[in-house]
């Protein structure tokens, strides 16, 4: 029987390669798109109910509700396996056929965006009303107040919960295996099917996720320090 050490050394490079090629890019790209979606959604949800904003608001509420109320795995299945059957004459006569990569990133972005939208909304609400008033009182416009005064402060507040979402997302990318993406978990499954060492292989891939998430936690600590420099040091 091969030694465990030999199994690890021979399969770790393949898992690492899958991580570099799929897991990390999918997580980063999805999180960036998700964050943009989240900021827009949070701003729409916080905007006053007026004119065409009421329609946007309804869409934002529906979007957050939908993606937080259904399982991520089911969402992936609907987007990748289900949408090809959404055949609408004139619009999509052949259904919506997405390659696995696009379907994965779209689903992960929308899913994490829904959660992050609530985080960002809460962070914006946590900034005292006086900050808005002070900025308005010197004649700043609403976009200026948001960009210069509110969002920079909200970013600091939302850093820990957003890091939660990012770390969750990194691990959730393992679900992409189910839509034929050969990411880290899928690679470990394939190797386990060959060498009959599921315990070693799945523990090894778990270690890879743990390392990635540990690095992210460090990054979070570093960013928290950087963005909190203006706070009085606690005595």
């Amino acid at each position, binding site marked *: 029987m091969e030694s465990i050490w030999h199994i690890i050394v021979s399969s770790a490079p393949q898992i690492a390669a899958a991580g570099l090629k799929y897991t990390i890019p999918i997580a980063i790209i999805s999180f960036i798109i998700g964050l943009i979606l989240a900021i827009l959604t949070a701003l729409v949800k916080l905007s006053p109910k007026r004119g065409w904003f009421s329609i946007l608001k309804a869409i934002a509420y529906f979007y957050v509700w939908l993606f937080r109320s259904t399982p991520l795995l089911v969402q992936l299945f609907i987007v990748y396996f289900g949408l090809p059957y959404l055949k609408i004459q004139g619009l999509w006569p052949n259904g919506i056929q997405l390659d696995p990569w696009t379907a994965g990133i779209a689903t992960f972005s929308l899913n994490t965006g829904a959660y992050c939208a609530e985080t960002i909304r809460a962070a914006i609400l946590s900034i005292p009303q006086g900050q808005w008033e002070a900025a308005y009182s*010197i*004649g700043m416009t609403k976009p200026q107040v948001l960009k*210069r005064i509110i969002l920079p402060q909200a970013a600091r507040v939302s850093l820990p919960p957003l890091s939660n979402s990012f770390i969750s997302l990194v691990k959730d990318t393992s679900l992409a295996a189910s839509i034929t993406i050969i990411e880290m978990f899928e690679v470990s499954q394939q190797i386990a099917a060959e060498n009959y060492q599921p315990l070693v292989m799945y523990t090894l891939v778990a270690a890879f996720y743990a390392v990635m998430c540990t690095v992210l936690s460090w990054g979070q600590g570093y960013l928290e320090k950087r963005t909190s420099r203006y706070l009085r040091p606690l005595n």
Partner: protein
Amino acid sequence: MISLEHLNKTFGNHQALTDINTTFNAHETTVIVGPSGSGKSTLLRSLNLLERPESGIYHFNDDNIDFAKPLSSKTILNVRRKTGMVFQDYNLFPHLSVVKNVMEGPIQVLNQKPDAAKQTALDLLDKVGLADKADAYPGQLSGGQQQRVAIARSLAMNPEYILLDEPTSALDPELEAGVLRVLLALAKEDDSMIIVTHNMEFARAVADKILFVEDGKILFDGTPSEFFKQPTQRIADFLAAMTFTTISDKAK
């Protein structure tokens, strides 16, 4: 010159301002006094359009704002640029250094070049006695220092009127004195100021005109000597109550 005609403002069922008519002359210091909850702050905040009265006319120099009609954002921004606001709890931007707090308005709103804005900001910080704190963050300053930065921040916009909403109410007496000295100096320079305060001694020292507000109505509109020397019974009671507060504070 600012003048108000028939201003009315309600919060739900509460009538905060009732038929306010008065003028605020340029180069004068007007002090607004009155019991807590009387509508003083609402009146002041209406001048910066942080509050929007439901009816009445607001004349700002040649601009006439009719509160019964929707206000254009251009009008709102224009009035806010010309009226600097200082708040009871300072409301400095905690994520920006002191000097950047002061530069923010001139750069973002007046489109000044950062170098020019910085020079003005440093001069203003010197004026309020905080030149050495330019690179500190607001959280590292005392309340009195923060309030002086807030005054510098509003001066940086070169406003026609400076509106101060109980600028020393959150401060200990020794810190209050530092802020009041800055305001006295501004009053001597003939800046146009409108101040809401509970400090009668300060009101007496600085005011060219006094407004006494109670239950959302102006009950007195005149000179400080009239106000302090020939008060109506209601004002005499108010002043007596304020004096008692001062005495009991000193007794502690």
